[in-house]
């Protein structure tokens, strides 16, 4: 399948490294420019919404439907952005496959590989959730995910010392099929929780701009008709500012909902990751929970997001309070992933920081 000549593979991997960084860099720039300066009108938003009626369309055919889009403007604009993200995604896949071929084991054994996989998960998440709401929400999502993936990629490629980037053969404790399941699911869950928390932080920042948070609080958890809600603002008070405010509130609602759904998906993955790690530990050294710092912080992350999911059920706490908890969760996830390595000892210290 791939080249067996080691020299060719090395240079191919090097060019892939640079290629992934460049594509992610330009994707970020494109998303930022298009979000800041090109805002679609309501009509264009509606056009895109009508495309989502058929639940059986696959994600990619939905993403790249060309025929039914009326506006040429939309056609070039958003498809270009999506293609850019899809290309970054593809390049990251190829990079990981090349590393798999080179080292002979699943490419998730050290910090470099897990960061690359994390970046891939983020871009993949974008492709899954891009069509959930309107174009504006999609662009905002892309503007958050692209720099996230870029930073992960850049840190892995440029900041990590060379010896930590090389693929080394696995130590005996990692030679297990559980490696694929446990680490994969954990990284996927980190990606979802990070993106969901970032959306919550964005929600809080935008919420500070718009002061009428009590309306948001009521609307975020009740079954609301968005069309009726926007009519309230359009119909009663047809000024520019009312339209803008309505737009911002609707955007906030959508961000909140998207954040909830993404975190709601990340939480089961986190559960599966922690539990598969526990089962692996029991198979390897007879103890499914040994209060290792990484294990403990994963449990902490789980508890913080369980609290987040439960605060959404409490009446009177909607809107802002869950978002604050999700923001705390952002810090907790990063500490769980990278910070525990600074603490030093534990079963997870496989060649991280010394």
């Amino acid at each position, binding site marked *: 399948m791939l080249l067996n000549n080691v020299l060719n593979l090395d240079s191919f991997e090097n060019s892939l490294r640079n290629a992934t960084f460049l594509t992610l860099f330009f994707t970020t720039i494109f998303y930022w420019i298009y979000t800041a300066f090109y805002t679609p009108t309501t009509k264009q938003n509606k056009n895109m*919404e009508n495309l*989502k*009626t058929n*639940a059986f369309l696959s994600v990619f055919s939905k993403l790249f439907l060309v025929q039914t889009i009326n506006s040429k403007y939309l056609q070039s604009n958003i498809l270009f952005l999506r293609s850019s993200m899809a290309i970054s995604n593809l390049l990251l896949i190829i990079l990981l496959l090349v590393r798999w071929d080179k080292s002979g084991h699943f490419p998730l054994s050290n910090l470099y590989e897990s960061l690359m996989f994390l970046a891939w998960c983020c871009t993949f998440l974008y492709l899954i959730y891009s069509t959930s*709401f309107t174009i504006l929400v999609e662009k905002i999502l892309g503007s958050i995910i692209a720099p996230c993936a870029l930073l992960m990629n850049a840190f892995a490629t440029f900041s990590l010392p060379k010896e930590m980037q090389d693929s*080394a*053969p696995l*130590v*005996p*404790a990692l*030679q*297990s099929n*559980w490696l694929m399941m446990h680490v994969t699911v954990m990284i996927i869950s980190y990606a979802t929780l990070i993106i969901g928390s970032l959306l919550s932080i964005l929600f809080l920042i935008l919420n500070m701009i718009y002061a009428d948070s009590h309306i948001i609080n009521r609307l975020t*958890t*009740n*079954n*609301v*008709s*968005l069309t*009726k809600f926007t009519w309230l603002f359009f119909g009663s008070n047809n000024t520019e500012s009312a339209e803008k405010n309505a737009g911002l509130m609707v955007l906030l*609602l*959508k961000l909140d*909902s998207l954040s*909830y*759904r993404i975190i*709601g*998906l990340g*939480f*089961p993955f986190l*559960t*599966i990751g922690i*539990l*598969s790690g*526990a*089962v692996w530990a*029991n*198979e*390897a*050294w*007879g*103890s*499914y929970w040994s*209060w290792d*710092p990484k294990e*403990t*912080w994963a*449990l*902490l992350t789980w*508890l*913080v997001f*369980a*609290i987040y999911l*439960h*605060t959404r*059920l*409490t*009446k*009177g706490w909607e809107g802002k309070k869950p978002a604050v908890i999700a923001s705390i969760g952002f810090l907790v996830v990063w500490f769980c992933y990278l910070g525990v390595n600074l*603490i030093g*000892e534990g079963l997870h210290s496989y060649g991280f920081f010394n």
Partner: protein
Amino acid sequence: MDARTRLAGAKSGDKKKPTVTDKLKLGNAAPNVEVFQAPKPGRDNDEPSTSGSGNASSPGLAAVLSRQLETTPVQIAWRRLLKELSSLPRAIAIMGLIAVLSGLGTFIPQNKPLEFYLTNYPDGAEKVLGFLTYDLILALQLDHIYTAGYFYAALGLLAASLTACTYTRQWPAVKVAQRWRFFQKPSSLLKQGRTEVLPNARIQDLGALLMQRGYQVFLKDGSLYGFKGLAGKLGPIGVHAALLLCLFGTAWSGFGTLKGTVMCPEGQDFQIASFLLPASPLASMPDSAANVVHVNRFTIDYRPDGSVAQFYSDLALTDPRDGRELLRKTISVNDPFRYNGVTMYQTDWSLSALTLRVLGNEAPLARAAEASQAAAAADRAAEAALSPASAAVPEAGASAERTAFNLPMASLEGRPGVAGRLWATFLPLGEPGQDGSAPRGISILARDPQSVVFYDASGQFVGVRRPGSGKAITVEGLQLVVEDVVGATGLEMKSDPGVPTVYAGFGLLMVTTLISYLSHSQVWALQQGSNLFVSGRTNRAKLSFDRELDELLNAVPELPTQPVAAAPAPPAPQQQQQE
């Protein structure tokens, strides 16, 4: 018994689930149905209605209360306890407490000896963080947070809270969600959620569209109820049940586990039971612990770059009563030895002895060799066979130019100046001095079974040899050949009765958290004349349900207006799409 159950004709204590016949019967009853099945105004029946004060506003709690007819102090206290335990803010606080305590345990090293805390958290000028001293740590049990009483108490409180919440809120809410509720008045629809009215629409069309989108639809007398994703309502109950199972399993493990470690050299054996230590007096030794394990061989596979590929231990389990071999397996890391409840894991290793052969006819050893030869000749006269010699005795039958030694090795790990793991042995070349000082001799060191390093009597490095290569090295006038390095395998043994329960809890938790992601959506409709009232709600994906409802309502075909009707229907305000 309160008014609701009396109206439905149920007897006191009658808690059987309503059958289809019952539901239809109740549906066919007159206005009583409304009172029985509609939620009280302003109250959210499907969500677990919680509030900061935790007052008894949920229907589940009311149902629980209604069942308790007596009002003895015990019953009052029990009801109060349930109410306090099932309060959601309190549960959140307990989860937060466990989180904070767990995090604390990662910053303060746990289970270290006393001297560690004395040196690292001293009292005096250099207090850590200005207040954290060793006696504060020890007094608050911060050196063993995860086994401290208050940590167990927090876990127990969490378990109680989970149980109380499931009993008082979730389970009754599921029962409510399972009842088919048909509404006869538009005003009741308004209470459910977002309500719309479609003029000139038929309820059957809506029903068909709902079914296309995966809803289960029930139609009766111009009233419709459809739902999908009921699993999303049951999921959280499953999550709580799974968590309780996990907690129970870990508690069982905590009391019933027996574990121990053993470092057994190759060729030796040990009885399992003598190394298993119980975690508590409640732990019972399994029968298979009476068996004996013989270590046939211990090998380390190395890669060309010198790193370890894998550790292998060839183990044989025998029954001590009749010597019958029960199981033989070569274990490695991630592949343990399992037999009847006892599991042995490859976790450690060490070097136990060195087999050294001396070539040549040197004075101190030759004397020993001659002496042993003489003894051997005398013994041969007495007995027919002579068993091979064991440790520290020259091999019987060896000629004067060959003598082999089996020298035990000791670990020097942790000694000053020693980095990493190191084993050493000593071959003396003379008698100890008159003042009791050590004799002069050859020092032999090894870090792993791959190579052995020789130092002469003055401590100078002489050379390195690979065991089994046959190549001799000359040290202090002696020619030495390293024949073999005898390793020892470090095994961790465990007998844990709680593992099946814990695994079951894990599996259930993995599945139920995934199921809880589903959104439980409900739609009600009521046909009044040519007007169709539609109401819908969901518990999770609220905005996408909102959009779905928009699409659904847009898809319902508008019927042509009847020209002879009493009042001509106004023209439809919205654009329609024919499916």
